[in-house]
């Protein structure tokens, strides 16, 4: 019995008794360095956390993560779950302050895998100085879910909130780095594609790279191109802002190995998810300053202007293709890769 409890997650681990308390106190809590953002945090195991927040608008977001496979080149579900929520706060213009983490685990899940997943989540939070303040653990029966579901909820504070809908005609459109890597890494891992150059997920928290760019005050709208990739992000921003967009395909950064593999698979790199990139609309007068701020951080060093918002074609994105043709860049139908984030 003892061995079983140490190697595999069982129903007892989620049952609220001593076994669960031991799991929390010995295996989960100590992994997280910052466990409070106010008088009551994770250590108190109270019914909720109490936060002291700095002045500003409070931004609040949640995301459930069900990626398959749980471990993929460049990351795992733990890193992804924390990063995803942090980035959602950041692209709203908020500094992330505190997160919750809820686990739903399938009975029989490997204890070692769970530890690895939590360690990589903890590493991201420690590097950012963001606290994990509350959480939950549930165990479901064998076969009732596929391994693990991780939900994270985040709270951040914004001096100036940046919505998706703030794009104005004339604004320049920027992407902070090469697109398509997370989606393709997942696809390659899932289907064991024979790739010459391995593609790694770009999963990374955006706060350290974007904070200086936010300070310029030049960003009018921002979005992280996760599900549906760049194509979905641009279309959503165009639609919500009531502007058209002209994007130059030759300027969209895509790593050659990503472009090559997409070509072979017949999928568009613009529809593949990114987990460490942002799409920005920037007032033209501030564009230089924003680019310089982005270029200072390795994560956004390859930030580029890819196009401009226009008055014509409101709600639509026009792509000037690499050969010089023109077409609409459509909202993707669905992700070419199911269950990726």
């Amino acid at each position, binding site marked *: 019995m003892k061995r079983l409890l140490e190697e595999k997650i069982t129903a007892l681990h989620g049952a609220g008794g001593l076994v669960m308390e031991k799991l929390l106190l010995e295996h989960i809590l100590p992994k997280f360095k910052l466990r409070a953002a106010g008088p009551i945090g994770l250590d108190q195991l109270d019914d909720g956390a109490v936060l002291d927040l700095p002045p500003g608008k409070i931004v609040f977001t949640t995301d459930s993560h069900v990626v398959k496979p749980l471990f993929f080149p460049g990351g795992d579900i733990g890193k992804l779950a924390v990063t995803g929520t942090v980035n959602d706060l950041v692209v709203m213009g908020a500094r992330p302050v505190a997160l919750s983490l809820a686990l739903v685990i399938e009975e029989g899940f490997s204890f070692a895998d769970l530890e690895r997943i939590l360690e990589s989540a903890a590493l991201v939070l420690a590097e950012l100085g963001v606290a994990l303040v509350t959480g939950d653990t549930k165990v479901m029966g064998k076969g009732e879910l596929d391994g693990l579901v991780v939900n994270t909820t985040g709270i951040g504070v914004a001096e100036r909130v940046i919505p998706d809908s703030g794009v104005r005609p004339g604004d320049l459109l920027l992407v902070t780095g090469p697109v398509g890597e997370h989606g393709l890494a997942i696809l390659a891992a899932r289907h064991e594609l024979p790739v010459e150059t391995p593609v790694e997920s770009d999963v990374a928290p955006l706060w350290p790279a974007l904070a200086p760019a936010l300070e310029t005050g030049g960003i009018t709208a921002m979005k992280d191109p996760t599900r549906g990739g760049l194509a979905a992000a641009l279309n959503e921003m165009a639609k919500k802002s009531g502007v058209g967009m002209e994007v130059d395909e*030759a300027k969209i950064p895509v790593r*050659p190995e990503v472009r*090559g593999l997409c*070509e072979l698979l*017949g999928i*568009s790199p613009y529809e593949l998810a990114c987990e460490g990139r942002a799409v920005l609309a920037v007032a033209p007068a501030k564009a230089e300053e924003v680019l310089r701020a982005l270029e200072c951080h390795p994560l956004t060093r390859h930030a580029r202007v890819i196009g401009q918002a226009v008055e014509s074609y409101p709600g639509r994105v*026009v*792509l*000037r*293709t*690499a*050969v*010089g*043709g*023109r*077409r*609409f*860049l*459509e909202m993707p*139908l*669905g992700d070419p890769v199911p269950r990726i984030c």
Partner: protein
Amino acid sequence: MSELFSLRNPEWAERFRGLLEKLRPPRPVRIVHVCGTHEITIAQHGLRSLLPETVEVLEGPGCPVCVTSTRDLDCALRIAERGAILCTFGDMTRVPGTRMTLEEARAEGADVRVVLSAADAVEIARRNPQKPVVFFAVGFETTAPGTAAVLLDNPPDNFFVLVSHKLIPPALAALLSAPPVEIAAFLAPGHVSTVIGAGAYREIAARFRVPIVVAGFEPLDILYALALVLRQLREGRAEVENAYPRSVTEEGNLRAQELLRRVFRVGPALWRGIGEIPASGLYLREEFAAHDAQREFGVEGELGEEKPPGCRCAEVLLARAVPTDCPLYGTTCTPLTPVGPCMVGAEGACNIWYRYAGRPRL
């Protein structure tokens, strides 16, 4: 891969655009290609925006899944309902037959499996010796040699083929014999032509006095082929030209042709949206009768309704309409909820236009 991307060089594309403009036909012309991969290149790279205003390029019956008749699909459905393992290509499972799709049949308990090749179906037959395994063989001269090869390679006794392979040149002739729409020229498909050779179109070009240019699949391949077409039109020539010589020869792949001759004979075939075209289908020769699914199961499809009400796929397949002419396009008919076969098949014109916004001009 670098050679491939050099065929997307924007400076060359601009030079071709200038050339096409110089060759601009005085009156509107309709150029038809018959290949989903051509349509994807044209739509994905926005090539229509580079053409002179008088040039319209349409996809005809270029999607093998789209042109498979309801009758053949009904045969496949019956075979699946009689307990065989039915194997076919992915898109085929979503095309509606008279009563339902193969996907719906699977939901009701039939064993329908998606395979990537005829060889995969043979493998399934080997692993399930107690069950009949039927490969529903669709596609043009490109996939038919694969079907022939497995039949010549001593397949197990429980392996059968329901043949619905079709031939491209007779379809071109049929489009030209079906007024009222005038087709000024064809772009011939690069993959099919690799098998059958550029020479296979000479008789049609001469008989109908229509230029036919074999085209590759990169943007510059297509622009080059269109330039050759426009030059022929300007000079009043009607010849076969090969704009894809890095893959296509005059005589084609003789070994693949030999496989086809050994396994199949040619007969009339029913094309969805077009009707019966003489000498456009492949049938198993007598020596392979033991693997003939139609004979084994004694199925014959009905001549069912070829299109759902309101659907204009038939006109799209005949190159008489473009997808956006159809009132269902993008409203009730989308790739997620396809009504007609041209929206189901990933090579269907409607499906491609929906994904890549293949609007003619922008």
